């Protein structure tokens, strides 16, 4: 290794105020101000507070549906993604068919189709009564089936981004395709996939609002029910918006923090 002798160390020029102002996250400040304003409003205004408390009742369902769907979608997506890059023709084409199917249909339509057609059909084939599967469960099944396909594509891209040489190195050491996938390719791929997976988590959180059409009492459905009797459209939907905005903001800051840590810790 070359060693540089006696070279004067060049310091980067101290950044001036302008540069600091330029890079300041103004957008975050604006969003936080909006959230802050709403929070104050909720605290001081009994009407706002009432509505806030009503919507709050749906929060646990929103978070529960998001978390459970995401975990199962990750597992399902991993297997679909592995099928997608498989050398087995049948496996690969089955996976591609499924993924293209899901990606070609609007999410709202899929939610209807899965909950009201696919699930009852499956229930019938297994001899279960039609109401054996709750609407929340159907919502989760629908989201898992839909997001599994999206996440499969994230896995595929992540796996394909790892050079062919890594697989060959593993194989040349006598490891099987699966062993190499598990111990060599996936650990590297997952690290690269963190940002994309984070985006999917945020998107999923937002898309849980769609399952309100099934009557699942998450925050959107609770808001709709509340509005139908109170007729306080403005207050209700502003507060509902606030809920989603705060949750996605917290999530994305959290994910950025995790990514930074993953980079440092490797």
């Amino acid at each position: 290794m070359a060693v540089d002798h006696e070279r004067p160390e060049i310091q980067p020029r101290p950044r001036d105020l302008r540069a600091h102002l330029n890079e300041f996250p103004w957008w975050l400040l604006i969003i936080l101000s909006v959230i802050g304003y709403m929070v104050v409003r909720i605290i001081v205004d009994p009407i706002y507070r009432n509505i806030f408390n009503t919507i709050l009742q749906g929060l646990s369902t929103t978070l529960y549906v998001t978390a459970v769907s995401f975990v199962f979608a990750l597992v399902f997506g991993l297997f679909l993604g592995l099928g997608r890059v498989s050398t087995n023709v049948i496996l690969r084409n089955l996976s591609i068919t499924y993924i293209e199917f899901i990606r070609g249909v609007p999410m709202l339509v899929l939610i209807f189709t899965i909950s009201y057609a696919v699930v009852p059909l499956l229930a019938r084939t297994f001899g279960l009564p039609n109401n054996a599967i709750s609407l929340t469960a159907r919502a989760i099944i629908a989201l898992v089936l839909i997001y599994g396909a999206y996440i499969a594509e994230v896995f595929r891209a992540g796996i394909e981004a790892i050079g062919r040489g890594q697989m060959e190195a593993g194989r040349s050491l006598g490891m099987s395709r699966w062993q190499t996938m598990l111990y060599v390719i996936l650990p590297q791929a997952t690290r690269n996939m963190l940002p994309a997976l984070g985006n999917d988590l945020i998107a999923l959180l937002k898309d849980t609002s769609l399952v309100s059409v099934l009557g699942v009492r998450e925050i959107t459905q609770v808001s709709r029910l509340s509005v139908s009797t109170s007729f306080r459209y403005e207050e209700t939907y502003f507060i509902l918006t606030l809920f989603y905005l705060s949750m996605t903001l917290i999530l994305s800051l959290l994910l950025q923090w995790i990514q930074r840590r993953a980079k440092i810790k490797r």
Partner: protein
Amino acid sequence: MVATSADPMIRIENVSKFYGHFRALDQVSLDVQAGEVLMIVGPSGSGKSTLLRCINHLEVPDAGRIVVDGILVDNDEKHINAVRAEVGMVFQRFELFPHLTVIENICLAQQKVRRRSRAESQTIARTLLEKVGIPEQAQKYPEQLSGGQQQRVAIARALAMQPKIMLFDEPTSALDPEMIKEVLDVMLALAHEGMTMVVVSHEMGFARNAAHRVAFMDQGRIVEQGPPDKIFSTPQHDRTQLFLSRILH
């Protein structure tokens, strides 16, 4: 099939390989004896890597037969695994596992394939790191090492499987000149220990010091082969002469 001492370590018989309609290997036949160091030289695209990669079944020949230490290299997964367990490979671009430390790189396949314990594989790894001259780098990640050090880790990783044969595909051509020697020294030591080696490289110094035989490839064929002095001083074929005049300037 059981190998007798008279059988070659590697037997390649009439192997052809096509990429689409392009013939990358054209009925290549070649034997490598136990303990022999064979160097393969030839212009870019002549099929050197392809031939090497057929030996451990990273490429599947379209015709012909390859037998390694008495094991037929066909599509039978058992045979492939058995052969890969005996054949180590070193790549031009090292192909270390970047998410694992140096020692983990050397231990992974030992544990997953050879089923060695953690302690045992680490002991073997440390011995090998000593042997390739970088015992102090065990806990580092590949990206923290120089190219020469990375390639030596790659050699140690392959040796940890206790292979009978080592394949090298241009092991020094991705290295800065000042690091080539440290890698060649390790290879030289291996050759002197009697390892069977097939080396694709244009390092003439190594060929003179370590190779028992040099094979010249062109357009998917082995054009001529023989002892290094003979090939380098009195090549028989025009194409060998032309090629050598280019790389020996």
